[in-house]
């Protein structure tokens, strides 16, 4: 017993003096600050719950999103109101399809459009911007003028023309949005890279013989992450809005699939018949979702540069 105690003590001793102390990275610091931001944390919880519901929800509903409840067809205004008894928790749409299942699918699609579009923007934008900013000079000029040219093309018209020409499909939507959303990211990243590249630690890396490509990947991109994360959290709701607008115009997602924008469009069309639930449920999800994204973005911004507060 005594021996054990001594052993324990000596072990504790050696632990405290020789075991490497875990450092706290800037990233961990930022996450700590984020967790202290109540509004952002609550938004994150709400958003995660919403996403989880959108995937679990369909299993809880007796109806799926595309089959029509023939009993209600044509009588949606009178009999399609939300009710627990017939299983239409959010009521039905004009065709008698279950609104709950449709809102769940719409949530999935809208978020997917936002996230996939943003992922394209982040990968292309960060690499493009970092390369342009780091090498500078003529390459930078050429690359940035190319971005300027792309930015001066009215992308909404192009998107609409694409939909009209090739028909409505979700892949076309991904491609279209991804194609036009990386330019802002590239510009922001290039600006940041210009600031970072004159820091002494980059010079130290050059002096240590590290190759250009490695410097970009190991020193520049990680130091950009803060601003990229913040911009990403603002880009997602932006893309969701764009998609909603396109769907609201009647383009975009192909029926019977749907999205927040398409659902709101349908609900708005029938608002004069008193079927308010067809508008309010998707609208509530839409507003809550975007609200959460913006709050999270704000929280991330504060977390990554505490000086600006």
């Amino acid at each position, binding site marked *: 017993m005594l021996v054990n105690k001594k052993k324990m003590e000596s072990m504790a001793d050696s632990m405290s*003096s*020789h*075991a*490497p*102390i*875990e*450092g*706290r*990275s*800037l*990233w961990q610091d930022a996450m*700590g*600050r984020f967790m*202290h931001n109540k509004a952002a944390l609550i938004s994150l919880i709400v958003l995660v719950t919403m996403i989880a519901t959108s995937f679990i929800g369909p299993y809880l509903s007796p109806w799926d999103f595309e089959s029509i409840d023939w009993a209600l067809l044509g009588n949606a205004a009178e009999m399609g109101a939300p009710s627990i008894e017939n299983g239409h928790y959010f009521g039905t749409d004009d065709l008698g399809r279950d609104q709950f299942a449709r809102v769940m699918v719409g949530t999935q699609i809208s978020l997917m459009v936002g996230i996939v579009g943003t992922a394209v923007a982040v990968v292309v934008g960060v690499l493009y911007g970092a390369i342009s900013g780091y090498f500078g000079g003529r390459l930078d000029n050429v690359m940035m003028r190319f971005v300027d040219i792309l930015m001066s093309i009215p992308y909404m018209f192009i998107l609409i023309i694409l939909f009209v020409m090739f028909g409505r499909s979700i892949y076309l939507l991904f491609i279209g949005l991804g194609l036009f959303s990386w330019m802002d990211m590239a510009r922001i990243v290039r600006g940041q890279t210009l600031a970072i590249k004159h*820091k*002494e*630690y980059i*010079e*130290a*890396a*050059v*002096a*240590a*013989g*590290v*190759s250009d490509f490695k410097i970009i990947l*190991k*020193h520049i991109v*990680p*130091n950009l*992450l803060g601003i990229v994360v913040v911009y990403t959290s603002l880009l997602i709701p932006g893309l969701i809005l764009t998609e909603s607008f396109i769907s609201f115009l009647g383009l975009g997602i192909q029926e019977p699939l749907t999205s927040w924008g398409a659902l709101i469009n349908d609900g708005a069309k029938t608002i004069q018949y008193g079927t308010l639930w067809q508008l309010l449920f998707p609208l509530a999800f839409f507003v809550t979702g975007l609200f959460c994204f913006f709050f999270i973005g704000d929280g991330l911004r504060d977390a990554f540069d505490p000086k600006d507060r």
Partner: protein
Amino acid sequence: MTDLIKPIFSVDDLKITFSTQDGDVEAVKGVNFHINPGECVGIVGESGSGKSQTFMAAMGLLADNGTATGQINFQDHNLLELSTAQLNHVRGKNMSMIFQDPLTSLTPHMTILQQMREVVKLHMQMSQKDTDAMCRQWIDRVRIAEAERRLNQYPHELSGGMRQRVMIAMSMLCDPSLLIADEPTTALDVTVQAEILDLMDELKREKGTAIALITHDMGVVARMCDRIHVMRHGQYVEEGGVEDIFYNPQHAYTKMLLDSMPRIDNPDKTSHHKLKPIDQQTSAENFLEVDDVKVHFDIKINGGLWPKTVPLKAVDGVSFKLRPGETLGIVGESGCGKSTLARAVLQLIPPTDGTVTWLGKPLNGLSRAQLKDKRKDLQIVFQDPLASLDPRMTISDSIREPLVTFASHMSRKEMQEQVLQMMDKVGLERNMINRYPHELSGGQNQRVGIARAMIMKPKLVICDEAVSALDVSVQAQIIELLMDLQEEFKLSLLFISHDLAVVREVSHRIMVLYLGRVVEMAESKDIYANPMHPYTKQLISAVPVPDPKIERARKSIKIPGELPSPMDPTAKLKFMPSKLRAGETNYIPKLIEHNPGHFVAEHDSLTDLQATG
């Protein structure tokens, strides 16, 4: 005697606490002091000791998360209890403050006159005409030439020293009874520092303004102050008259501060002086030869569609040789091209002209891949320890980086072992291996930077102001570390600094740069005992000595005129106005060997120079 005089400023049991994410931090832990009219009180301490915060609280400038308790009395008001409106009445008028960085404390989009008018308008009833006249008077008084023109210029058009003088003029406009100077000369060159300190001393004597001088530099304190408070960790460890503190320090911390100050008048006094003499027989051939290196940057002037470019000659024909194991100190004021020269030697900035020969082979004109091989032996340590480390990498990753590029055959474990050994050598504890730079102090970060530079056992290390950003006690440790490593690895060092006292301690030979050209180069002993060039003389005389009797008896040499802009073609003839008068504006002063190994650029005599001003 002092009991009879009523102090104008007194602080009673002041405590300042900052609430942070990791709990409350007590920055100032109950300090008491007073300042009498017409007195200069020095608050000395190293960074983070809370010396500035005391006065920030008095001016109502504490950060939002800070709270102050206790009493700060100024002219019968407790400043901590005043509302902002009442405080505005006091600050600026009766009590004013000058800050460390004169550029950031002036509003960039207002002319000097507009900013000065603003101060007068707030605190005094005066007509515009009188105001302008008074502003002009003050600008004259702080000895800014061409007052009329300067008043209508914007802050960025003035040099650092001039800006600080404008700040002093602005803070003196309303005849304050207390002037708080927070590190007023830290960001300035030594020659400018000497002028600013003289000016403040003169104002104190003429106007009877009390001065609170916050600084880390014992030399400045020795020149200026009547009484001193030594501060550490938010408390005063020692206080007393200037001579008591300097000649009879009681507290161990004060003694340590005084000991670690490098002294330009007597370098052997400091305990850590270990510079090994260099073998004179060692040949300089085939090690490092820098021959007539020039670095010019193209500067665009007067925009428009086709802007003209003019070369800015940052380094304009510098040659020197370095022997193995030797330290060459490069000194000069800001803008003299010393950092650019270092980068040109390492080919981080390609030289415009001239050659750098390393081990008998030229370095310039090599491709990136060829250069990479050479980089193994050529390393650099930077000025700002935090900025030179990637904030997202642990310190062991940073130290390992050269190994990954140059010794990729090593296994991860071998690399880790090497990193640990290097950390032992530079005095970092092994358990810090996973730490990030922002979690370490400046001195520790600089050790990481040194470890990174040393891990490939280079033959030449360039220290670019490597100790300038550090506190004196840490500075002494880092210098000692560099010397130990130099002995162990038989390193050659290029030691760049603006601090002549530090350079004297570490260098075998010293080179003085002025606007991209060498004005004097000699053995370290020679140059301090027998400086020949007026610029060197001026520099050496401007360095404050931490000894009040010597410091106050010394006369600093002044050469009239501001430090000219390097764009000015006549600037390089500042020390040879005779050639300018003769119309030979393109004459380039030649380096002449006065004694063996002592090179001096041509110049007019010092008395002539002082007379022409």
